[in-house]
């Protein structure tokens, strides 16, 4: 069971929404548990958010970032959506410099991040809107 900090700004809310999607799922927990890495995600046009994986916790920061960041990921909102909706393959994105990554050499970290984040994002995107309709079915 992973606990995820509640977001209070647009981007963090989004990241939280995505990551929470699998917080009870075995594989996800195994990936995240004790990963203990700091990833800085920046959506161009908005602002960077630091995602801190700390044992069984995921926290976020939008300022006073830590000195030591394991991975820096930067992309535009359209790349973000294209990746989520499977219109763009992450590897291609990296080569096309649409997905800019600092720390490419730490290939392990990168791959794990992709498993944790990009994969989850795609699962969220492909999920039918059920849960929403659940939450106000009585009103439709």
């Amino acid at each position, binding site marked *: 069971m992973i606990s995820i900090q509640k977001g209070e*700004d647009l981007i963090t809310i989004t990241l939280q929404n995505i990551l929470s999607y699998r917080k009870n799922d075995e594989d996800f927990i195994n990936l995240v548990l004790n990963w203990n890495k700091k990833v800085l995600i920046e959506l161009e046009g908005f602002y960077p958010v630091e995602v801190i994986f700390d044992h069984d916790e995921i926290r976020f920061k939008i300022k006073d970032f830590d000195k030591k960041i394991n991975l820096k990921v930067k992309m535009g909102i359209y790349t973000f*959506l294209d990746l*989520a909706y499977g219109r763009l393959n992450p590897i291609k994105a990296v080569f096309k410099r649409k997905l800019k990554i600092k720390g490419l050499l730490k290939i392990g970290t990168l791959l794990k991040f992709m498993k944790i984040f990009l994969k989850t994002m795609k699962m969220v995107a492909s999920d039918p809107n059920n*849960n929403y309709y659940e939450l*106000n079915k009585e009103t439709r």
Partner: protein
Amino acid sequence: MTETKDRDIYEKISKEDVLKKLTEIFEERNVTNKSGDLYPYSYDMTECEPHMPDFIVIPENALQLIELVKFCNSNLIPIVPFISGNNVGGLTIPENGGILVDFGKKMNKILHVDDNMMYALLEPGVTFGQLKKHLDENYPHLRYSYPFAPPYAGVVGNVLLSGMNNLSCKIGSMGDSINGLEVITADGEIVRIGSCFYGKDEAAPDSWWCRYPMPDLMGVFINWQGMTGLVTKCAVQLWPNPPIKKTYLAIVFGLTDVAPVMREVSRTDIIDDISAVSIEVVKMAVELPIPTKFSGEPDFASMFSISAKTKKQFKAKEEILFNEIENLNKQGKNVILVNADEFVKLFNLRVRCYLDLPSVVLPLVEYSGLTWFGSYAPSHKLEELIEKVNKLFNKHNITPFIYMKMMKSGHYAIFRPIMRYNKFKEGEEERYHMLLEEITDVCIDLGCIPYKTPAWMTEKMRKKINPGWINLFEKLKKFMDPNNIFNPGRWNT
């Protein structure tokens, strides 16, 4: 706040006799004077001062109401029409007591849907949810339009009070979507207005297709808040339901840049509906009790809904929208345009309640209190309005919640600061009302015209309106309702 002019409404007849008469007209089970039953009708979501009605009646036909009106008119008893009490202006609070007529329970039939001339003939109690369901199931190629209101709000009340819906950028105020009315006037006469006006007692169901071109008697009942008669039937226009629909979300950085963005896009005449909300509102949807805006976050989110008959037409419209946004960014605006459905899914599905109307707009109903300054606004004043109102919100340190729309291809705008608060928390209501009054003064000074107006607001307006208008208004009210029985107190009557 609303002053309730004290008026003894039982000079001419005793309460007991009134009850007797009501039971005679509506039968015992449809009449009540038990305070337990009366209480819920004595207030609404707003801070407007509550007042108990003396009776609730549940009518099922016009004949009963004719009898009621004649009776009330000769005995000077107030009549207050009520559908679901969802208005945000204390419009159905019986300021002088009297009889509250609840249409929502039994006079809520969809009488006719005209497939060819595209209208629906409704009783006053029909709700948005009910109409949508009926159309989706029986006339999937037709649609109505829906406001920023829960599905259990009333359709007829919304049009009679010039509400605005999610086709507003195309069709404008709902006041222009009314094809016809059946009304009971003070003398108990039943009047059919609009193209349905032929025929002695009944009109053919296929005759409710237009408001004009005969002398326009309909105005006498539009935006009058029930002060001129009791509406018993209303025909509203429907629209073709195009196969392709999509909503775009414009994320706008910079406090006032949303104004030119909305103005420019509305004039392209390709958008069904344009609405914009403060970013804080988007965040409210995610259950942040008191959301604050962080630097780097955009200021407004604007939604553009596009529909089309064919792919080609949709692409053409999309292209026009993209070009418009591109131009705006070239001119130094900072706008990011994304597919709303895609974005919302990643962001948080609860936000969909803004997209799929009618729906319970969660951040609103999760509070016990709700009030607003809802107004028609000059679109060239939007920048100034946003800035000044935002300041006021911050001064009172209340989360800014601004909702805007562009109407009828950009001919005018809607400016609506909204406040949610906790009704039962000591001092809360007063604090919010103070802010609301300050907002009202600023907006009216800038030319905004409030709609669904509570009495304390019309009082402010009366000081600014030209005397000729006031005279004509008073003259007409007196003449339509000499004994002031129809929803007295509205517009300080």
